């Protein structure tokens, strides 16, 4: 298990005042964060740009020392025992950097494999296996500069798995990828956690991605934790609104009135079309059954009914609104 206790990071940045004078400025990127990652679990780290996600990942992967707090990886201290920890973790960032573009896919993996102390047959086997699971076997001898974005990202994943890490940190891994490619990548991440039992921390600002993949989510803002729960609970606790859109045969004014009376606590809106009425309902509970009952009672025929469940995205937006209010 990875356990971060009260970690914080303070950067000191030089601000140019004039040609000769510069002033030190303190940037508090992460502030008193507690966080755990278990084996076989996908944990999400959410937040707006500049919230401190990358900084957190870099501290967990030993690239940065926390200014305060401690990080232990299976009992090893990430600062004191950094070299042992490095052997157990790996990090993958989105985007096309972090590869040698003039080397082929296999050569990239071979280079990094050697830095991890792999060699000979074991290394070649590992390279072959990894290229296979990321679907780059055919491109293994092609220079990376000729790869598509998606291929580069898949090679990054292979690179991140070269040392068979127990814990993997993914910093916006689907950044800039087309939807089907991103979907394929998500499948891969899921397999890594569920079949290979790796502990995974994922940052993303695609909320559906986090909702689909993560067992638990940490939401941070300006470096501080504001919420930690399962995606379902976050959504349920923050967003109380269900949205139902229903299209019916034309409703007369009295019927509309009785509908309003019948749905206590809901907000209704009507849009009149030539041969139908579209009713928008916002409710703090799932109002579908009640609506259908009312329609039957009024002998109104239903043409279309759509229930929009609250999503994590709504939760985040609601949280942001709460904060700024």
């Amino acid at each position, binding site marked *: 298990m990875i356990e971060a206790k009260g970690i914080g990071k303070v*950067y*000191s940045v030089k601000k140019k005042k004039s040609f000769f004078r510069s002033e030190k400025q303190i940037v508090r990127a992460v502030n008193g964060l507690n966080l755990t990652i278990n084996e076989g679990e996908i944990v999400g780290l959410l937040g707006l740009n500049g919230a401190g996600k990358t*900084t957190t990942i*870099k501290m967990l*992967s*030993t*690239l*940065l*020392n926390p200014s305060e707090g401690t990080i232990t990886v299976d009992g090893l201290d990430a600062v004191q025992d950094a*070299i*042992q920890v*490095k*052997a157990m973790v*790996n*990090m993958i*960032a989105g985007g096309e*950097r*972090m*590869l*040698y*573009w*003039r*080397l*082929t896919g296999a*050569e990239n993996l*071979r*280079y*990094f494999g*050697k*830095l*991890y*102390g792999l*060699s000979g047959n074991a290394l070649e086997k590992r390279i072959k296996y990894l290229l296979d699971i990321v679907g780059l076997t055919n491109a293994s001898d092609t220079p990376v500069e000729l790869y598509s974005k998606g291929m580069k990202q898949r090679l990054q994943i292979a*690179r991140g798995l070269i*040392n068979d890490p127990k814990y993997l940190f993914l910093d916006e891994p689907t950044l800039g990828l087309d939807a089907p490619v991103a979907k394929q990548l998500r499948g891969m991440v899921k397999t890594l956690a569920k079949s290979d039992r790796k502990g995974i921390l994922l940052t993303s600002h695609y909320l559906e991605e986090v909702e689909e993949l993560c067992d638990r989510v940490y939401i941070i803002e300006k470096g501080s934790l504001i919420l930690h729960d399962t995606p379902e609970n976050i959504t349920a606790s923050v967003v109380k609104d269900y949205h139902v859109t229903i299209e019916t045969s034309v409703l007369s004014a009295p019927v509309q009135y009785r509908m309003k009376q019948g749905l206590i606590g809901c907000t209704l809106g009507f849009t009149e079309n030539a041969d139908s009425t579209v009713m928008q309902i916002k409710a703090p509970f799932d109002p579908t059954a009640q609506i259908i009952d009312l329609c039957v009672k009024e002998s109104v025929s239903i043409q279309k009914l759509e229930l929009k469940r609250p999503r994590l995205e709504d939760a985040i937006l609601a949280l942001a609104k709460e904060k700024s209010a």
Partner: protein
Amino acid sequence: MRILSILQAEVVKSHQHNFHNKLIYFSLLIWPALLFVTAYYSFKPFNLSSSSQLSKYMDVNQITMYLLTGYMCYIYFWSLVQSAWNMSYERQAGTLELIFLTPVPRLTVMFARAAGNMLEAVWLFTAFTLLVLLTTGHAGEIHWWNVPVAFILLSISAIVWGGFLNIVFLFSRDAGILFTIFEEPMQFFSGVRIPVLAFPLWGKIIAFFFPLTYVLEIFRDLVLNGKGLVELGEQSFILFCVLALLCTASVFLLKKAEIHAKETGNMVLF
């Protein structure tokens, strides 16, 4: 074994990365060859008899060999300037940070990187030097039994120096300065063309700061003057001290660089 494996990895990487383009061979052969030829012909018009100023400091009949050895040793050192310059590329590409993400012994990578780059960069001009030797009939002036030890000294010195430069560039992103300091000044002050002894005092002081100066002196004494290592005891000792100093500084700076990077996250800034 680990060292060899990392060395091989660095050689392959530097080969694919810096030498994939055939144009690079232009800069590795034609450029130093041109330097050599221009230097040679700029000496030509002068009176280089035994009564000339220069003859106080060197055997003027050896001028061809003097320049050739000078430029060859210079290329060994210059290739490592380029290796350090590539650090800024790796910083931008983010691969530098990935190297530090691994548990690899850092010092090994820094020196293997220097060695890998040197091996790739120098063989061509070394071959050229030998060719000139054989075709111009100067081969007889060479003390061949000293050649292996001279090359070993040259290579080790260059690698130590290159590893040191790589480490210095973990701190700085302004790699342009390398070219300013090491292109023309290193050629001039290290005694590639003119013996350091012929410099005025201030020139000698500057020469003192380029490790190439010490290497060149020993290299020429071994290969051109046929002196033995015992005879060169004092010079060898000085070179040894310079290299030891560079190694110590490397170990120290490398530790500092990683600590600094872990504080500031500067390994990705560019």
